[in-house]
């Protein structure tokens, strides 16, 4: 029976091993913070919009190379280009050059007559025949003339203005065959590259980051006053991957070394070390494989969080060896059978605690929950199926284990006297004071541990380039494409006064590049009438018979525009058909003052099909909602656990319950005193704390006065709090908060549980 289980588990482990080899070779790891968040079921189009904006940027690397003068800036840009071109398998230049402008000119040329700026529209409908004729004549006779068309195709010279309006959406301008902008005391060259690397594997050395850093060093050392500002998802992803690698090693290896050291101190034998190590390794591998199979992509933060598993999954090995110590090898079969019920109970409570993290529909949390729960099961099955077979030799009780087991009797125990009561009063004051001060924060930044210099670069680049914000935009929906474009126009009419009032710098809308068919027809009519008057005036003045060129019969359609490379500028904003409706995004540039956001939200009021989306605020609200929900669940959990304990231990139930309650309160109080805000992830930490903390109390009540129980609890507690303590070092605020919560809570519970033990000689009954 036991051998069958061992062989079965061996087969499972071999399968997992095979999967692991494949997994690490072609790891599809997620570094995107948005992947951690739940989808918005009520508004799938908002998710689609956000995702499209994020995908677009997925591989882009944008660089600004600046110097005090244009000559040096160009030299610096050449240095950077040379450096980035060295490895063609890593980065390729994005096309930003003149050929895409030529393609756009050719696409729009037949429709020139129906592309007008709002100012031109006003002027054309107001200008007299004399004014139109005079303007056409002056432009005709003006010395030299860079025109985009023949005179006949644009007698009033309207088209260059339309292009100037389109170009004003970016601060970059063509200059000497480069894209140039001037700002903050420097002249800049804009460079765009895209990454050739699709997925980000752990342990990657941050290749793109290295190349960019090298280019930056060259610019600063070889060009006086030179500066390189770089931003892009590849840099964030590489930073996240290398940070996660570091943290996984710190947490994983740190906990492993600590666990094995504890095993060595306690058992002084190689066999427990190897076996506990094997159970942890298999637990982690099973966790990884199951998570990778269930979820399409494993998130980096899952792996970082998962590293703390080492400090929890050792429990079963500890329990086995603590009971096995000093007993002859022949007893190990029956011993395992006698331990199994307790171990299964412990496993179940921990697994339930972990799975409770997955109650919130956050894909990221569900990954972490599944990872930890399956990891525990994997470690447990290894202990249960393999340990009795593999653990053959003798294992004498060590002096350390004996001395430690005996230490329980000397541990202080709560008794009703003045010292204990005044201590309790002080603790209550500390807790009340701390709770009074506690603050909350629900902010997407808690999920983001990006290095400060990357964020600073991103800001500087956005400022210089006047890039639109990807987190705040208008979503415009309609029955068909024409309606979407018309509704955009209605929205733009409301936004224009805000641009004039400098609330933000400008907007980017598809309808600027592709007016609605109705607008195109109206503009074609307007320009035809105005230009006919202009041509007639010129004919009269010159005595010749020039004619106005013919234009396309139909309007420019979305299909035509999207099929052309000229649509690059607006493709990411055109969502097309989603379900029953069509959607587009109107983005805002130079939106720097958050206090203006409510005004923008008001702008969409009463406009049919227009919706203001503030992703940052939505995420904050989501995090807040779940923080409150999980907080309520924890309260319920405490009462549920209390009921269970009362059912089992009657009047002694408080001895197992109180340490965890106090642990939770002390953690919250410390957060309050040191000013660490309470957030969703610290609340989730409290939930896990409830699941694990109560176990110690149960164990002490089940085996009152038994040294080996105390030994097992102590070993388990030390390794658990070490793992979570190391998680508290994470650069990701959410994980740090989680780790700190667990660390503070575990220490308090671990110290208090033996204080609440039964008096010597008594038991629960």
């Amino acid at each position: 029976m036991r051998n069958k289980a061992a062989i079965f588990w061996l087969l499972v482990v071999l399968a997992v091993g095979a999967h692991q080899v494949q997994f690490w070779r072609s790891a599809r790891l997620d570094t995107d913070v948005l992947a951690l968040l739940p989808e918005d079921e009520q508004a799938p189009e908002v998710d689609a919009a956000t995702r499209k904006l994020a995908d677009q940027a997925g591989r882009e690397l944008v660089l600004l190379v600046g110097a005090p003068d244009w000559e040096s800036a160009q030299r610096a840009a050449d240095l950077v280009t040379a450096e980035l071109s060295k490895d063609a398998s890593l980065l390729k230049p994005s096309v930003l050059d003149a050929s895409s402008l030529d393609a756009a000119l050719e696409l729009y040329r037949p429709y020139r007559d129906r592309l007008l700026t709002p100012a031109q529209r006003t002027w054309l409908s107001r200008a007299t025949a004399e004014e139109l004729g005079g303007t056409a004549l002056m432009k005709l006779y003006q010395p030299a003339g860079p025109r985009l068309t023949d005179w006949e195709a644009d007698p009033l010279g309207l088209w260059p203005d339309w292009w100037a309006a389109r170009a004003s959406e970016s601060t970059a301008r063509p200059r000497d065959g480069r894209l140039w902008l001037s700002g903050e005391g420097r002249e800049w060259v804009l460079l765009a590259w895209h990454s050739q690397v699709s997925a980000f594997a752990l342990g990657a050395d941050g290749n793109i980051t290295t190349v960019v850093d090298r280019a930056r060093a060259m610019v600063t050392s070889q060009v006086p006053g030179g500066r390189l500002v770089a931003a892009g998802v590849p840099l964030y992803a590489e930073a996240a991957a290398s940070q996660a690698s570091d943290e996984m090693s710190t947490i994983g290896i740190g906990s492993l070394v600590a666990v094995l050291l504890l095993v060595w101190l306690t058992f002084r034998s190689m066999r427990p070390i190897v076996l506990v190590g094997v159970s942890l390794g298999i637990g982690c591998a099973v966790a990884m494989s199951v998570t990778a199979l269930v979820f399409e992509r494993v998130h980096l933060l899952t792996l970082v969080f998962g590293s703390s598993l080492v400090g929890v999954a050792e429990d079963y090995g500890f329990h086995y060896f603590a009971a096995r110590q000093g007993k002859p090898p022949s007893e190990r079969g029956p011993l395992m059978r006698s331990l199994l019920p307790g171990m299964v109970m412990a496993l179940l409570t921990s697994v339930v605690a972990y799975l409770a993290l997955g109650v919130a529909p956050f894909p990221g949390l569900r990954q972490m929950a599944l990872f930890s729960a399956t990891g525990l099961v994997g470690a447990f099955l290894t202990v249960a199926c393999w340990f009795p077979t593999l653990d053959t030799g003798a294992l004498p009780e060590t002096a350390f284990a004996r001395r430690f087991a005996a230490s329980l009797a000397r541990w202080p125990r709560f008794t009703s006297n003045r010292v204990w009561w005044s201590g309790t009063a002080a603790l209550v004051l500390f807790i009340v004071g701390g709770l009074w001060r506690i603050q909350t924060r629900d902010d997407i930044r808690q999920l983001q541990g990006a290095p400060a210099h990357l964020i600073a670069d991103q800001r500087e680049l956005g400022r210089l380039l006047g890039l639109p914000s990807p987190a705040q935009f208008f979503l415009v929906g309609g029955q068909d494409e024409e309606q979407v474009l018309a509704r955009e126009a209605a929205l733009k009419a409301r936004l224009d006064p805000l641009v004039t009032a400098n609330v933000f710098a400008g907007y980017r809308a598809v309808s600027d590049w592709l007016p609605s068919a109705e607008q195109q027809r109206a503009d074609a009519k307007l320009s035809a009438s105005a230009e006919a008057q202009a041509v007639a005036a010129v004919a009269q003045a010159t005595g010749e018979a020039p004619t106005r060129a013919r234009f396309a019969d139909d309007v420019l359609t979305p299909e035509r525009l999207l099929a052309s490379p000229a649509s690059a500028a607006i493709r990411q904003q055109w969502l097309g058909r989603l379900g029953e409706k069509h959607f587009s995004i109107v983005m805002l540039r130079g939106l720097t003052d958050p206090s203006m956001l409510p005004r923008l939200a008001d702008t969409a009021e009463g406009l049919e099909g227009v919706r203001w989306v503030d992703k940052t605020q939505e995420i904050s609200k989501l995090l807040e909602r779940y923080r409150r929900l999980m907080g309520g669940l924890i309260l319920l959990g405490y009462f549920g656990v209390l009921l269970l304990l009362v059912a089992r231990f009657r009047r002694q139930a408080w001895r197992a319950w109180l340490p965890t309650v106090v642990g939770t309160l002390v953690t919250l109080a410390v957060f309050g005193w040191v000013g660490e805000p309470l957030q969703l992830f610290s609340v989730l930490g409290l939930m896990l704390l409830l699941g694990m903390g109560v176990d110690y109390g149960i164990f002490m009540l089940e085996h009152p006065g038994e040294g080996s129980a105390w030994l097992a609890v102590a070993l388990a507690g030390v390794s658990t709090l070490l793992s979570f303590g190391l998680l508290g070092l994470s650069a990701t605020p959410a994980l740090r908060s989680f780790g700190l919560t667990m660390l503070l809570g575990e220490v308090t519970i671990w110290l208090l549980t033996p204080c609440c033990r039964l008096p010597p000689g008594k038991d629960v009954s």
Partner: protein
Amino acid sequence: MKRALLLGMLLVGSTASAGDDVISGVRARLADVPLLRGDFEQKKTVSGFKKPLVSRGAFLLSREQGVLWDTREPFASTLTLTRKSLSAEQGTGAAAYHLDASKEPGLAAVNEVMFALLSGDVAALSKRFRVEGELVGTAGWKLTLTPTDAGLSRVFKSIHLEGDTYVRQVKLDEARGDTSVIQFDKLSQTPPPSDTEAKRLAK
């Protein structure tokens, strides 16, 4: 915008030039003028018009401030280009247009080019154009400019300059087939700008 710049560029373009010998030769033959005025005759061949469009008038170039280009025939109009703006007005007052540098950021770039030209920055000009030329006789010279910059070559095929102490003729071959020939006459470094002219340049 650009077209006005090019006008300014061409009028002073002669201070910068080509292949080392020719460049220094042309430079030596050109007068260094902070102010230049004279008459012009422009013949434009434009597709859709059978005969060349001829216009005549007077111009004023102030190296520090800008260019005034006043047409007298076939109709009266004024064109003013300064660092801040471009404006044109018909003599009858019937039509006018105005461009602001703050609204058209390209104008700032244009000005920088002008400064490069005015200060005889050969390097700047040869970045945008391939410059070829020859010295003619004891005082004359000819230059051919071919744009190397994608933006400029969308507008010009080539530009031909001829002159001696001053630029005497400019011929523009536009990319779309139109051509312009501008002849200068009665060139002089005096008198200084009148009050009206100074006011226009100060805009």
